[in-house]
């Protein structure tokens, strides 16, 4: 019933099955480092020109979170739908392969040692204001990533660069003491290029100016956002949609309900709401990239969780499949990893390292001498985490532990998470899936050095450093080593990964999600 689509086919036609997906062209890896003439950005996705003609109209889209233009440089659920419509990135990560695809960059090259990185910027691109894009805008944007107020998860990476300069009108050079690539592509994916002249307007959304295929027209906070086609878009392939209307519907059921004729695309529906559309021919459900992970963090300094056996036991005690079945209605995959399973160096064994084995859990608990131990779990009060907790609690009781949960209101939980202080155990929710593992280990609060698990042995940092400076072939073994170390230490159990579940009408074609789950509508059309 749920189609697994990382991108929409542009072959057209109705009733696309999995065959159509697999047979369709992918966002391909045509661009290699230092590659020659790259094709023109997203337009290179091979969009037939003819397709655009019948596909006008305004796309009506519903999402649960409000837009946050102020936080455009940070990963925010409310921005995923429009970030790449209003702005363009230098590169985006391919939804299938995870490889960078040039957009505003035409090509890039890395020095031998990887410490210097040059990006050439597409010429003839103008902002919605009419001003041409220059290397200065790119430098400005990257500098903004560093500013703490902008809350970018990529800030530590960019701060590590020794210099960011406009080495030519259309070239930016970045130097660093550690290899810049490949993690720079994570930065470039998130750091969409801003217009330095109108940056202040982002704060209240009064002026949101980018180079993207759509212009930001009107935002009513908490209610709606309207985009209009950018007639001066640089791509040779015309943009089909006249505009995009985004409705913000905070109630998930209501949002799902909007699918009944009021919108064409619903982003991030909950699986339990998706049940409504079982067998409905007018609704197609899509599992997209950009999964969420649900960590169960354990404070390694708080007894009895200072026992590794006990921490491991907890990993074996949890019935991940039941969580997926009952909380997520079968959408999601059990995974013990903090990154996508297609990262180089990831093995099947690692993904399923902790499987449901209550016997083994009991045995480990006995070995740790922790039978009947009370474990206080702080749970973020954000659906569906409390529901997951109910199963976790049940599972832990089954193996003879005594879990006591406290559901914390989001703001309070986040405060604890930022401060790295969440108590004995905690259930979090993390996004950013699709960025490279090397980036995630420092970006995810559960994993970064000041993590609430208080897990910070020297070896952990060393393994992270090894991964982050690994170039090319060295990356896979470095990640495998780090992953195995983290799994063994069991300071943060990932319970599962769930893909975002989107719903669309069959009429809507050509929608693309990139590797981190951001939406791209430049090739979309409504021509059912």
């Amino acid at each position, binding site marked *: 019933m749920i189609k697994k689509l990382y991108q929409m086919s542009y072959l057209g036609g109705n009733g696309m099955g999995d065959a159509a997906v697999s047979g369709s062209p992918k966002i391909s890896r045509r661009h290699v480092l230092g590659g020659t003439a790259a094709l023109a950005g997203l337009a290179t996705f091979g969009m037939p020109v003819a397709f655009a003609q019948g596909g006008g109209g305004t796309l009506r889209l519903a999402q649960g979170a409000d837009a946050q233009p102020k936080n455009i440089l940070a*990963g925010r659920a409310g921005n995923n739908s429009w970030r790449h419509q209003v702005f363009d990135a230098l590169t985006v990560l391919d939804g299938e392969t995870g490889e960078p695809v040039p957009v505003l960059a035409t090509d890039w090259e890395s020095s031998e040692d990887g410490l210097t990185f040059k990006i050439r910027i597409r010429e003839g691109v103008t902002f919605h204001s009419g001003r041409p894009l220059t290397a200065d805008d790119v430098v400005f944007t990257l500098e903004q990533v560093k500013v703490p107020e902008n809350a970018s998860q990529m800030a530590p990476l960019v701060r590590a660069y020794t210099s960011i300069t406009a080495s030519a009108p259309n070239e930016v050079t970045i130097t660093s003491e550690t290899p810049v690539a490949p993690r720079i592509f994570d930065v470039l994916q998130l750091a969409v290029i801003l217009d330095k002249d109108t940056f202040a307007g982002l704060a209240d959304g009064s002026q949101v100016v980018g180079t993207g295929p759509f212009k930001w027209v009107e935002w009513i906070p*908490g209610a709606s956002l309207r985009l209009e086609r950018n007639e001066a878009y640089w791509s040779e392939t015309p943009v089909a949609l006249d505009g995009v209307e985004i409705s913000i519907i905070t109630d998930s059921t*209501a949002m799902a*309900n909007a699918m009944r004729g009021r919108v064409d695309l619903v982003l991030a529906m909950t699986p339990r709401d998706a049940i409504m559309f079982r067998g409905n021919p007018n609704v197609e459900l899509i599992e997209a990239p950009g999964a969420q992970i649900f960590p169960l963090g354990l404070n390694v300094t708080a007894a009895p969780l200072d026992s590794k056996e006990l921490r491991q036991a907890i990993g074996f005690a949890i019935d991940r499949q039941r969580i997926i079945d009952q909380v997520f209605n079968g959408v999601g995959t059990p995974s013990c990893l903090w990154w996508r399973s297609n990262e180089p160096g990831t093995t099947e064994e690692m993904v399923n390292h902790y499987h449901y084995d209550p016997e083994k859990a009991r045995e480990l608990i006995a070995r740790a001498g922790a039978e009947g131990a009370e474990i206080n779990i702080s749970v973020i009060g954000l659906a569906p985490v409390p529901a997951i907790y109910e199963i976790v609690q049940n599972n832990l009781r089954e193996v003879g532990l005594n879990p006591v949960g406290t559901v914390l209101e*989001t703001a309070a939980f986040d405060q604890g998470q930022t401060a790295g202080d969440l108590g004995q155990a905690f259930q*979090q929710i993390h996004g950013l899936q699709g960025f490279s593992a090397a980036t995630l280990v420092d970006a995810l609060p559960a994993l*970064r050095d000041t993590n609430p698990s208080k897990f910070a042995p020297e070896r952990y940092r060393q393994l992270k450093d090894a991964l982050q400076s690994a170039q090319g072939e060295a990356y896979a073994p470095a990640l495998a080593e780090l992953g195995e170390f983290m799994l063994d230490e069991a300071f943060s159990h990932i319970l599962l990964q769930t893909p975002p579940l989107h719903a669309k009408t069959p009429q809507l074609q050509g929608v693309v999600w990139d590797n981190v789950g951001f939406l791209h509508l430049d090739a979309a059309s409504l021509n059912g």
Partner: protein
Amino acid sequence: MLAFLARRLPSVAFMLLATSIIAFLLPRLAGGDPAQTIAGADATVDQVEAIRQQLGLDQPLPAQYLDWLFGLLRGDLGTSLITNRPVGQLILARLGSTLELALTASVLMIAFGIGLGILAGSVRKGAGRFGLDSAISVLLATPPHVTGLILILVFGITFNMLPISGEVSILRDPVTGFSLLLMPALALALPQAAMIARLIQARMMQIRQEEFVDFARAKGVPRSQIVLSHILRNSMGTAVVATGIRIGELLAGAVVIEAIFARNGLGLMAVDAVTSRDYQVVQIVVLGAVVIAVLTHLFSEILLAALDPRIRLE
């Protein structure tokens, strides 16, 4: 009337001042702050601190309060910390939705309340009386959110007559808009209507005992006219005051109803503002609600005075 207003002014002003302090302090007492919300779940300590300074949250509380208060006196409702939009603008954007709901609910409430009240006040014995009394009791005891859920179960699920949640402006699509509005408005209106009905019924029963009703009978006035000119006319004051107060309650009840029926109104905005610690918005919403309550109260008193010559001429 001016004298009446002048007499009420000091206590109203005092109330609003007290409310402003509570509204200011309450969200600030809660853990977490808007800086955290803006910085996001993944933020680091320095990011949150930088934002906190940017928002001026590092200022001492009295300074923040006075700043806000003087702004208010100048007519500046403040700026949302989260969206950076003027709070007034944010409210205006959501007002339509809540107004649609509140107005529809008010109309339903007044219609049902007064209708039921008059009926219950007129039917004095037999099964009809028992039925009306029971109906009012049941409606009275069931608050809006439960009424809403029952309506969803009955009309949304069992009979599948009405869509259960979501919102479309009536102005944009009257049919869909109204069908989405009907259940929440009913849910909101029914308990309040029952309250009004109960008050009108009691008042009518009481007026019925008054000597002037007997005197009217002794004058040879027909029953129907007695009910109309004497009993009902004298019960109107109660109805009006009750309605005034109930409209205030109705607005308060709208919050939960908006949550259940997923209407993107002021109520939901208030809840969002509290959870995201958007102090400026919370303050205005709370203060605004009290102002509305005070105003509806005042207005109904003025209306009552207009209806009752004894008060009018004082």
